[in-house]
């Protein structure tokens, strides 16, 4: 493969017709840095209609080109329409890389069009490095449940496709470029070519207990949790005025719902106070926590979680929890 034949790095712009998904802006900001090193242009690809004021936000992130795609099939999401769009555009313009925010829909179509193009797709990188020797992007991501970091590359094929979780990179706009080239494309996918048809949409009922993304205080239980001890942690959370959350193994054990899963593959949280019990400290989990005060309780003094905490207690989690409940109750009385 001649790598010279593939130019520019693209960012898929996800939006609901009104506002751009934050992950797309985060990606524009991060990929701008890669482009500065590689000499590629940064291109934002916008399927469907979007107001100028929103497009300006993309411009602020330092894009060189904007591809505006009109046509049928973008009023509502479908795998087919989005996959068709990227297959057609990639064949025409030959980008070096395509980045897609790992929303539910981003994760739905990105691997699909990558397979149609017979190219590689990576997911959930936490770091992106441009290697000037190989001219490949190094997607650095936690592997084996976060016990190790793996460098993934796509050395022989283009485009390099990657989905990135929301919140992984910071929104730090590099500023508007003097010249932004605007390209207009029309690509349509007809309703009869889409095997899914939207019948209804129902927004989630707001259940404050299940919304941990904005919680000020969070008590999190990890794999060290005994099934029968769960009520104790609910009680502690209530006493602290905190929301109860969990790590992935606890959700896998079906003890708590997925919406309470903290981490890269769950919810990213920014609480003032975060206390975790029996959490080992896998990268996937800790990257999801940005806490002002981070407290860890674990029986294993070598647990990685102690490297991320401000304060830690080495000890039996249930004993510490029980003691905290008692002390808080005493203080109330």
């Amino acid at each position: 493969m001649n790598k010279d034949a593939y130019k520019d790095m693209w960012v898929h712009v996800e939006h609901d017709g009104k506002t751009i998904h934050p992950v797309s802006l985060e990606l524009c900001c991060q990929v701008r840095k890669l482009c500065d090193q590689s000499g590629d242009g940064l291109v934002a690809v916008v399927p469907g209609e979007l107001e100028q004021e929103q497009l300006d936000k993309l411009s602020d992130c330092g894009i060189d080109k904007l591809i505006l795609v009109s046509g049928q099939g973008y009023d509502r999401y479908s795998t087919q329409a989005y996959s068709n769009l990227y297959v057609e555009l990639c064949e025409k313009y030959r980008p070096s890389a395509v980045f897609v925010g790992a929303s539910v829909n981003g994760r739905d179509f990105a691997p699909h069009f990558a397979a149609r193009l017979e190219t590689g797709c990576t997911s959930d990188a936490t770091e992106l490095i441009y290697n000037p020797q190989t001219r490949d992007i190094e997607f650095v991501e936690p592997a084996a449940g976060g016990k190790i970091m793996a460098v993934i590359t796509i050395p022989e094929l283009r485009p390099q496709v990657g989905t990135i979780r929301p919140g992984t990179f910071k929104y730090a706009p590099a500023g508007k470029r003097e010249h932004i080239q605007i390209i207009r494309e029309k690509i349509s996918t007809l309703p009869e070519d889409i095997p899914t048809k939207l019948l209804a949409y129902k927004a989630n009922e707001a259940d404050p207990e299940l919304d941990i993304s904005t919680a000020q205080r969070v008590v999190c239980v990890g794999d060290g949790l005994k099934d029968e001890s769960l009520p104790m942690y609910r009680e502690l959370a209530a006493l602290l005025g905190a929301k109860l959350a969990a790590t992935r193994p606890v959700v896998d054990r079906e003890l708590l719902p997925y919406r309470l899963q903290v981490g890269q593959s769950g919810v990213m949280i920014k609480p003032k106070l975060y206390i975790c019990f029996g959490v080992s400290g896998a990268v996937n989990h800790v990257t999801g926590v940005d806490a002002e005060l981070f407290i860890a309780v674990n029986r294993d003094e070598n647990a990685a979680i102690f490297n991320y905490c401000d304060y830690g207690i080495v000890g039996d989690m249930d004993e510490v929890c029980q003691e905290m409940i008692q002390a808080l109750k005493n203080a109330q009385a």
Partner: protein
Amino acid sequence: MLNILCCVKQVPDVNQMRMDPETGSLIRAGVPSMLNPQDSNALSAALKIKETYGGQVTVISMGPPAAEAVLRECLAVGADKAVLISDKAFGNADTLATSYTIRSAAETLGHFDLIFCGKETLDGATGQMGAQLAQRFDAAFVSSALLIKELDQDKGSLIVDRELEDGVETLEVRMPVVFTMEKTNYPTRIPNLKGKLAAKKAQISLISSMDIPELDRTRIGDPGSPTKVPRMFPPVLPEPGVILNEGSTQANVAKLLQIIAE
């Protein structure tokens, strides 16, 4: 009759994996293998469809011969047939090569109306297999499927709820369909003794690269995998925090609550 395929994977229990502090590599020895947790939810959904509408559930897995164990787990809770795709030539495959291999192997078994997968695996965790299988099978794709509500075999369509970040959409979908399943409505099934005994004796079909006519060998295993892993390294750990050491749990907790109060 509905022909249902459920794709499963044997994974190491990564929660039990430890890193060798000397070499920085993962210690795999002694780490037990298991059925990928989310695949058990996909299987529950496949079995539920079979129980409601009739049909046959085939479980398929690609992996080493030892992966037979997870297929027997699936048979023990009600899968009808189990197929293991196993061959050294398939080794080291990424999702692109794996999706091609599974589709190629499945084609030797017949046409499938419904194909179920877990949302992602415990080990690779790319969450890409569903989308890439849908592309390979030229099927509709419903990721994060929450509940399959109605299935009309004459019309060849079904109605399914799909979970998004902020709500649930209801879709009408033309078959064939590939689903990745949410676990909410399809909890893991626990086998009974009778199921376990039957699964122990059951025949598992083996598909090697020789059993797939017109298999494109440039598209399987390592050569067919565009993503490579040039290196791994241990996560860089920040400096440890302050470990409270006040002499007793009670004293530690008192100190902790004082810190929180500040």
